[in-house]
Every structure is written in structure tokens, then in C-alpha cells.
């Protein structure tokens, strides 16, 4: 909220110069009220999460404000089952995002760079996982993993780490491909011609010219994919099996019997980390643009 103040203040000054009629002034006030309401709507839930990480609940549910304490923050990992679930979630997110980013990036480059038979078909199948209801995806993935004769050559999966990872890679590939595709649409492919013209082999061309230039898009896709994977509940719930639980699945399972404040503490940590990553990414992006001389 504080970050907004310096950007809105000069704009308000500029507007007072032009808006003179009483109705205009009313409209301006209305806009401000609406903005505050909208931001409140967006930030209130997040604020509650952070606030209740400092609560000392009576009983098992952290739902009513009792009193302020730092106890939860001093022992954030005291709920070992929850901590294990978080670690598993991060492991899966890192692996799934890495694989999905590599696959999705190549897919995106192929779709943007080359015209080939079936290109539009690939495009369609990329969008499909994004538009299919997750509950349907989850249910059908479960069928796929448990039915040995269907596609996977009599291979039956035990539900657990592998099945969650495969499922996450599947939907993350789509998001990565769409994100990278959008980012490289304006890429100047004659740069690749120029590199090869100067004697660089196709692989050298890719690693020295293409990859460094599309890296921001790939990083953005990786972060998005990481966030989606950590966050995913519905599909994971279907394919995780009885003994393997990710962070969201664990919270859901627990929520009927108890919600320890450690949930809020860990959630706040995730929030802080992702906001920091976002700031760093923005800063790097701006520095890079400055250095390339693009204003």
C-alpha cells in the first residue's frame, strides 16, 4: 500500500488542473474509494493469513483471534508432518518446473519459429489442459495411472511421488509453452541466421544467441510453473495416493481436525519468498533492458 502513494499523488495533482466541475470532483472521489475497496478486497485475505500467524489459538483451530504471540514464528517447523509435506511440495515443484520449462520452451520455439504440418494441432492440444476442468484431469489421470492395459504398456504405477511429478509436468508444460510463446513472438530470428553466417554451429547459435535473449521469458515461465505446482490441489489430490501428501493436500486433510498456526507461518514464508523473487526478477529485467540500451 505504501508503494502506491508516490505514484498516485502526482497523478492526482495533474487531474485537479483539468477537472473543475463539481460532478468531476465527485467522480474523482468515487474512483479513489473504488480503488481502495478493490485493493482491500484483494489484500484482506492475505493480511488475515499473516495476522493469524501471530495468533495464539485456544484449542485446535486457529480461527478466532486470541492474543499476539511470537511462539509460532519461533517454532515454525514444529508440525513435522506439515513441514514434510511442504518439503515434498517444493521438491516436486522444482523438478516438475525444470522438466516442464525445458520441454515447454522447445515446444514454444518450434511453434513460433517453424511452420510444420500439425503445428496448429499441437497448439490446440497445448490449450486443452488449460481449459479442461482440473477435476476431470485429475480423475482421468488417476484412471490412466491405475489401469495397466490402457496406454502405458502394462506398466502400473504406485500412486505417489512419481505420479504427482508426472501430472504436474503435464499441466506445467502447457503453461510454460504458452508463456514462452507469447514472450518470443517478437524475436528477431535473423539473429540466428547472423550467428550461423558467422560460423556458429546450430547448437552454439542456440546457447550463445537464442537462449540468452529469450531467458527472461523462460525464467518467467519457470516461476509461473513453480507457483502452479506448489499451489495445485485438485489434480494432486487424485494422484497422490494414501501415503504421499503435498502441502495443500496436507492442509486440506488436516483442516477437519485441526488448523495449527504453523500453516499460517509457512504460508507467510512462501508469500515473502515469492514477493522477493518477483522484486529481484523485475530489478534484473530493468537492469538488462538498460544495458541493452532499450529504453
Amino acid at each position, binding site marked *: 500500500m505504501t508503494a502506491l502513494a508516490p505514484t498516485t499523488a502526482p497523478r492526482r495533482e495533474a487531474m485537479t488542473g483539468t477537472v473543475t466541475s463539481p460532478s468531476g470532483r465527485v467522480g474523482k472521489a468515487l474512483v479513489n474509494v473504488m480503488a481502495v475497496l478493490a485493493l482491500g478486497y484483494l489484500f484482506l485475505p492475505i493480511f488475515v493469513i499473516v495476522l493469524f500467524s501471530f495468533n495464539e489459538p485456544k484449542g485446535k483451530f486457529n480461527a478466532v483471534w486470541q492474543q499476539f504471540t511470537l511462539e509460532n514464528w519461533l517454532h515454525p517447523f514444529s508440525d513435522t508432518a506439515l513441514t514434510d509435506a511442504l518439503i515434498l511440495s517444493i521438491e516436486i515443484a522444482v523438478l516438475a518446473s525444470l522438466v516442464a520449462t525445458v520441454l515447454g520452451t522447445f515446444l514454444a520455439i518450434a511453434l513460433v519459429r517453424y511452420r510444420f504440418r500439425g503445428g496448429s494441432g499441437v497448439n490446440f492440444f497445448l490449450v486443452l489442459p488449460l481449459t479442461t476442468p482440473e477435476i476431470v484431469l485429475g480423475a482421468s489421470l488417476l484412471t490412466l495411472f491405475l489401469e495397466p492395459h490402457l496406454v502405458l504398456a502394462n506398466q502400473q504405477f504406485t500412486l505417489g511421488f512419481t505420479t504427482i511429478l508426472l501430472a504436474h509436468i503435464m499441466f506445467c508444460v502447457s503453461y510454460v509453452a504458452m508463456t514462452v510463446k507469447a514472450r518470443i513472438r517478437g524475436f528477431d530470428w535473423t539473429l540466428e*541466421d547472423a550467428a550461423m553466417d558467422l560460423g556458429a554451429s546450430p547448437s552454439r*547459435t542456440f546457447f550463445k*544467441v537464442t537462449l540468452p535473449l529469450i531467458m527472461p521469458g523462460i525464467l518467467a515461465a519457470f516461476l509461473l510453473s513453480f507457483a502452479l505446482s506448489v499451489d495445485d490441489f485438485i489434480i494432486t489430490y487424485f494422484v497422490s495416493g494414501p501415503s504421499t501428501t503435498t502441502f495443500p493436500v496436507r492442509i486440506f486433510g488436516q483442516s477437519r481436525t485441526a488448523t495449527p498456526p504453523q500453516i499460517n507461518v509457512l504460508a507467510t514464508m512462501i508469500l515473502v519468498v515469492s514477493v522477493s523473487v518477483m522484486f529481484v526478477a523485475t530489478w534484473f529485467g530493468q537492469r538488462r533492458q538498460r*544495458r541493452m540500451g532499450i529504453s
Partner: protein
Amino acid sequence: MLRLARGLAQGIPSRIGVRVTKSLAVALHPGIERAKVPRSRGIRGRTAEVSEIQPEGGRPLPPLEGARPEADAVISIDHVTKRFGAFVAVDDAHFDIARGEFFSMLGPSGCGKTTTLRMIAGFEQPSTGEIRLDGKDMSRVPPYKRQVNTVFQQYALFPHMNVWDNVAFGLRATKVPKPEISKRVNDLLGVVRLAGFAERRPGQLSGGQQQRVALARALVNYPRALLLDEPLGALDLKLRQAMQLELKRIQRELDITFIFVTHDQEEALTMSDRIAVMNEGRVEQIGTPEQIYHEPASVFVAGFIGMANLLPARVDGRDGELAIARVAGDHFVRVEAAPGVADGAEATLMVRPERAHLRVDEPPAGLIGIPTDVVDLVFQGPVVRFELRIADGTTLVAHVGPEDDLPLLRPGDRVWMCWEPGAGRLLAPSGHSAPMPGVDNTKELSTIVRSHQ
């Protein structure tokens, strides 16, 4: 490696400027005793030689092996055709480009000049025919294994690298040792006068500076030929003219073959040793700028290069080496004929506006003239531009200088447009231009353009 070793042995001095470029030239062309292609340009009036080869029917001419010494041609385009589906982008191009030559491919957009260049660079493969570099077939060799380098239309500089790294890219890619890299990059930055800009990024340079970085980057590998794809198109007029001279200077100093693609006829005329004029995939004519301008092989060439008055004519017979043509109703003129102009056939008479004179009275026997009406006249400084109309309605233009002592003329006045017998030229109708050799002064190269229906 041999070239490299010799270049090192010559000891490229680290001072920049002409001495560096001379030694660069030595490194590029170790055969110092080799015969240079003389750059003296053709004289006018070579019709007799031109008309020697005139087979009919557009059959491919047998290659004149004796006239095409393989040793001296850096690049041979051997009956190259390129099709994209049903579209023929390049139709049986067949010519050689000599060592140290400034060779231009000129034509309107879509004429196949850029496709030809991309085939030489290796980005496209010919559908049929061969492209030879130093006598070796390169048609299926990928671009990164060809010793030619390209200056791209929009420069295609790597935006994430500074100027120095951009120029060094080709040397690093080809695994040149480090001390050699820094020596060559610094030399080249000196040649293009950007020594103080090594740390800048392309985005921080002006268009002209980017252009010179692109040039240095393409030259750093010491290519056998430098390919330039409309490199001046993105620059404003003044910068373009400066860069024309700059390119010419660099080409002279480094003594590298330049293959230059442009749609700007003035640019091609200014810079080239020879020009190939292309239209709809065909090479219409190859020759020196003088030959192209004064002895166009077809109506297209005449119309595309400079201004030309084109009068419909009919060939009525021959008078020695000259043809007798009927123009503007029933006026008979004696005129030089381009190859492929058949007796009794339709043809086009070309007269350049600056070679036309105006007379109030009927011209004397030495001059050729047709009666016209003045439609409009505009004072343009050195010349007065006259717009004239002949009996059949064709509009002509004459640029008349102060030496034509004329009374005050007004629109509607009757004047004779006249020209010296050598100033006019009879051309075959477009699309039926006959085979014609582009006559090289030294006879080292023979270039054959054959007709296509």
C-alpha cells in the same frame, strides 16, 4: 589455416588505418602476384561485340569455358533455379563473380536478388544448379561452413553483447586463438572507425554506427566474399551517401569481393564494378554501370535504370550495322539495335532525356528527329525539363541544357526532338530479350544471360 598463417607471418601492425587494412588485404589474398581485375570501365558503343552472339529461341548457351577461368571466379552461379512451391523465385541464374569485384544485384522487390544472395550465404538451397565457391560446389553446405559472410538488412546485431563481443563472435565460433581474436577485432574496429565504441551495446549506437559494426563483424572472419543485403536501406539519405563512399573505401582497401543487393539504381551505379539487373527471377542483363545505362539489353533494364523515353517502333530493315525503325507514325530513323531485335518485328526505341535536343526547325542530316508538341516545361536549374507529345499520343521527356539555343517556348508550340545517331537504341520487347553477353573489358569473365519466355 594457410591464409591465417600467412596473415600472421605478415605481422599485422596494430596501428589502425591504411597500413592495417593493407596487411589485412594481404592476409585475405596471399597470392600477391595474382592478376587483379582492372576496374577501368567500359567505353560506349560496343554494339558490334554485343551482337556477335545471338542464338534464337532461348536455348541455354553452351558455357564458354575458355572465357570463364575458374581460378579467378570467387563465386560461380551455375544455372541456378530456386522454386518455392509453384513460384519460381530465381530462374536459371548463370554468372560468375570475380575476385575483388564490387558486384551488385539490382532489381525491384520480388525479383529474386535477395533469394540469390541467401543461396550464396547458404540459407536457401538451389532447386537445381550449383553454387561454387572457389570452384567447389557449396550448394548443400550449411551457412556456418561457408567462407562468406553477410551484412543483414536490419544489421541483426546481437543486442545482449557489446560491440567488441559482436565483432569477436565469428572468431570465437571458429575457434581462433585468443590473442589473434583481440588483434583482429581491434583492427577491424579501426577499419570501420569505431575504435572507441567497443564497450557500447548496439542499442546505444546510431543507425550508421550499427551499420559499421555489422560490417566489421562480417569482415572479421576474412570471408572470400562479403554479402550485403540492402545494407543502406534503413539509413537516411545523407548517411546513405556517406556510407556508399565508406563501403567503397573499405572494399578497395581490403580488396574483398562484395556482393551487394539493392533496389536503388543510383546506389548500384555509384558503387559497382558490375551490375546484374534482375526482374521476376531472371537476370536481364549483366554489365558495367556504363553498359547497363547506355546499352540496356531490354526495355525493363532501360526503364529501371535512370529515365528513358520508350517509343513503340517497328523494325523496317537494316542499313549496315544499324537498324531502320519506323516510329511516331511514319518517321524512319537509323538506330543501333540491341541483340534480339528481329527485322519486321515490334521493338522499342529508347532515348535518354539528357541526350535529346530540341530544335524549332527540321534537323539537319546528321541528326535524327521527330516532330513533337510541347506539353509542359519546368525549369530545374541546370536543365529545363520538357514534356513533349508525338502524333500517336506517346509522351516524351527531354532535359535541355543551355547549349540548345532555343527561343521562348510555350505549351502547344511545335518542336523537333532530336538526338545523335548513337544516342538512340532499339530494344526487343520485354520478356523476349535475347541472350547477350555482358562484355567485360578484360575478357576475363563472360557472363551470359539467356532469355526466357
